[in-house]
């Protein structure tokens, strides 16, 4: 019982800090930079201590799973939404990673974002993200995981658009949000279909549940769609370089450590369901392989450090998908943890990369050898050139998505818009018609340039 209370305290502490800071700001107070950072660091230090205590007590008492419940969030006749949390051997490493890495990133950001006008906003979003990630990793049911999943996605988007006065980060955030939301349809409908097919929503019960192959395939593919979106798997990889527009600490915690692995975590949780469907398993392996290949090729031609690191992370996440597909869940879990720690360090050092390189160069006496140019030589020159072009164009995934999904939707939207313009001008009062006539020149020129359609930058 004491473990349950401690687990709930660890999950909700960052959420409470977010609520306290946010509400005080809404009511007119602006907390001092140092206070915000100290409170955040103290929060995650407490969470880390709590996790350490939990870990030690679990080892001493031989308890492998800690469960906590806050009852039903809401109930309508037969339908219940339980607020149930679990800390088992899959969740424990990720929860521990979350509290340690978010705390580390908070400490790093204290000086990195010093006197930035978005300082408080960054820490608010970091705490909300911490809460969302803890909710995601400790959720005992698919229904509850959606809450954490969407909070992680939303904070990710808001931090990509952190530098709000520049157009590029803001529109990149919008594109990432669209990719997230479209892929989240998989999680939402997958969770709802579980109830329809009378599959328990608690992950623990999946190990003993007999899945029919058809149900496992449908729900498995829907969950895979959600995981692909969050983990930037092919063909949704295009958002990842755009996400690098955010400040470096947020890139580290989101795309080096936690958010990028949320998809793999979902698949780890859904492993019993995936195992019941060959189609879903094959799809996980194929997607993972394609992504790993795409990540390694594109990362090699990326011109900036953060994008190269992001594609390197993508390669590893692709390999983690493959491991999950083959059923090597322990290896995948170990891979996630080690990769998250290493990549966070690399991201946090990225702004000092040139400085580090020069120091290394000097330490080596000015004789640093080139690396990474060995295996390419095994391929024919023509094929190498083709791969190079493909990598430069980032696999043309964005182009394909825009041409085959976005463009038809926009075409349809434009036709609807024309119809609506006709309907709303049909009976416009005379005065309005005169006003509209004055603006006709502007509108006409806008139409010519396709401004009535959503701008390409909007999507």
């Amino acid at each position, binding site marked *: 019982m004491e473990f349950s209370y401690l687990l709930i305290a660890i999950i909700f502490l960052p959420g409470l800090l977010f609520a306290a800071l946010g509400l005080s700001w*809404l*009511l007119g107070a602006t907390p001092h930079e140092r206070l915000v950072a100290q409170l955040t660091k103290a929060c995650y230090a407490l969470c880390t201590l709590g996790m350490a205590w939990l870990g030690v007590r679990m080892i001493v008492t031989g308890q492998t799973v800690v469960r906590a419940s806050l009852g*039903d*969030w*809401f109930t*309508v*006749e037969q*339908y219940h*939404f339980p607020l149930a949390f679990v800390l088992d051997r899959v969740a424990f490493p990720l929860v521990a990673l979350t509290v340690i890495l978010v705390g580390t990133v908070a400490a790093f950001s204290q000086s990195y974002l010093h006197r930035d006008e978005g300082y408080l906003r960054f820490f608010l979003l970091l705490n909300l993200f911490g809460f*969302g990630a803890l909710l995601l990793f400790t959720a005992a049911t698919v*229904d509850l995981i959606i*809450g*954490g999943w*969407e*909070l992680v996605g*939303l904070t990710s*988007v808001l931090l990509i*658009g952190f530098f*709000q*006065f*520049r*157009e590029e980060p*803001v529109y990149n*955030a*919008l594109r990432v*949000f*669209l990719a997230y*939301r479209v892929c*989240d*349809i998989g999680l*939402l*409908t997958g969770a*709802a*279909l579980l*109830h*329809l097919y009378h599959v328990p929503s608690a992950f623990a019960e999946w190990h003993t549940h007999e899945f029919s192959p058809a149900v496992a395939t449908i729900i498995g593919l829907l969950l895979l769609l959600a995981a692909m979106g969050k983990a930037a798997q092919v063909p949704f990889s295009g958002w990842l370089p755009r996400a690098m527009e955010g400040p470096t600490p947020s890139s580290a915690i989101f795309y080096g450590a936690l958010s990028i692995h949320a998809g793999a975590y979902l698949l780890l949780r859904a492993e019993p369901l995936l195992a019941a469907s060959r189609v879903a398993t094959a799809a996980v392996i194929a997607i993972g392989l394609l992504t790993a290949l795409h990540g390694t090729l594109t990362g090699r031609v990326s011109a900036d450090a953060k994008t190269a690191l992001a594609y390197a992370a993508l390669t590893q996440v692709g390999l983690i998908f493959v491991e999950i597909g083959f059923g090597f869940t322990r290896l995948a879990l170990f891979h996630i943890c080690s990769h998250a720690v290493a990549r966070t360090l690399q991201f946090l050092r990225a702004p000092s990369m040139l400085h580090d390189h020069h120091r290394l160069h000097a330490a080596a006496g000015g004789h640093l050898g080139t690396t990474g140019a060995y295996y390419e030589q095994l391929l024919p020159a023509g094929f190498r050139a083709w791969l190079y072009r493909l990598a430069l164009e980032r696999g043309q995934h964005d182009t394909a998505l825009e041409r085959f999904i976005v463009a038809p*939707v*926009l075409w*349809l*939207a*434009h036709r*609807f*818009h024309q119809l*609506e313009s006709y*309907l*709303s001008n*049909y*009976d*416009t*009062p*005379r*005065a*309005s018609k005169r*006003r509209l006539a004055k603006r006709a020149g502007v509108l006409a020129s*806008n139409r010519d340039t396709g*401004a*009535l*359609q*959503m701008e390409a930058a*909007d999507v």
Partner: protein
Amino acid sequence: MSEQLIFPWLSLSVIAPLLFATWTWRAPQAEAARRIGLIALTISLVALLAASLQAALYHCATLHEPFLKFFVADALNAIPLPLFAALALGVLSFAPRRKVTPHWVAGVLLLSAATFAAYATTNLAVFALAWIVSLVPFFVKRFFNVTDEAEMPKLARAILIGSCLMVVTAVALIALATTEGARFSMVTVRAGNAPLLTAAFALLMIAVFLRKGLLPAHSWMLASYERGPLLPLTLLVNGHLGAFLIARFALPALPDIARGALPLLGDLGLVTALYAAVLACAERQPRRLLALLSISQSSFILVGLESANADGITGALIHWQVVAVATTMLALVYTAIEARLATPWDGVRSLGLAASAPRLAVFFATGGLALVGLPLTLGFAAEDLLLHGTLESHPHLGFILALVTALNAFHVLRLFIRLFLGQPGREARAITDALPRERWALTVALLFLVLGGLRPMTLMRLPAEAAGRLAAAVSKINHDSAHLR
């Protein structure tokens, strides 16, 4: 179970705004009129809260008024009644000074009184009267002080007048079909002449179709939002009298006919939601974008009602609350921005208002994201229930629902970015953040959405009770027809 309210709270809530409306009409100054209006709506809110509390204490029983027996407080209207009063109060206190005139206040009070009466009554004739009266302020120019340019378009007027005619004709047909004294109450309607009742039901459904702005009748909302008075229109739309007509009269009084006809209305609701979400991709005009978001999200209410199971109907009733509060928040923030800008905004260039009005930005973002089911808000619970209920009855429709929500979330963020992010111009830098009176109204709305999201059962108990009864009424008919077969 039939009990009595200890005081005529519902009559008081209707009469107070009506009386004060005549007073404000002659008030010398706008601010004096606003104060009178605020007193009237506060009286209504307190009275409605008392009635709702009594209904909740009596375990959601149907509580009749001591004198006007056709006014009741029950599980179905216990939340919408005080919620609408609070919305009207918020709109009146928030409205920018330059918009408010004594007649404007009188218009809001008349609309509020009519909506309270429509929610409170179990008599279809009274409901029809309230339906018509709620539209009066939009047809009489003096109420909302509209210029020729902002006058409601002819098409919109034709659609709304059409809805009134449909309701009145339906009432006349029901009068012909039934012979008992209380012929417009829900119980007696069932025993009437079947063909006439079917025709009356069809007319009521057409009225709902017109007033809710289902495709292709949605044009009235688009045109009115674009040129009309935004805040009163938001109140009118968020009354959701069309959905209430189905829940109060169509489902319980004529469940056998409703069971056959509602799928058509539900499918139409879903098509409308999808159409509006796709159309919004090509829309830049902010007022029209707000209208499309409102049309698309409020169409889900019909989809939930049509699911005819407790999950779906409860989801619809909770979604109603979310749509009402969230779209009002969006309209309030947008109106505040419109009032602060010296030149009208074209919706193309980014305003970058977050620097000068960060709190307005937070309110807009929270309201918008709650509308599309942000976790930790009431919208999440509503979306979850709607999705489950709809998938249970129509598995293929659930996917479309999720798709539409995803598209609408994108539109909310797109509008947010255009309004608040980007490089601020000189005009945007000079804009003031939310004023105290604005901040309080928006904070209450935000707390409703967030606290409702943290403890949804507080707001869900009464709607779930009402939904259970409605679902039971429909499933009984299904059971009986299966038995007959």
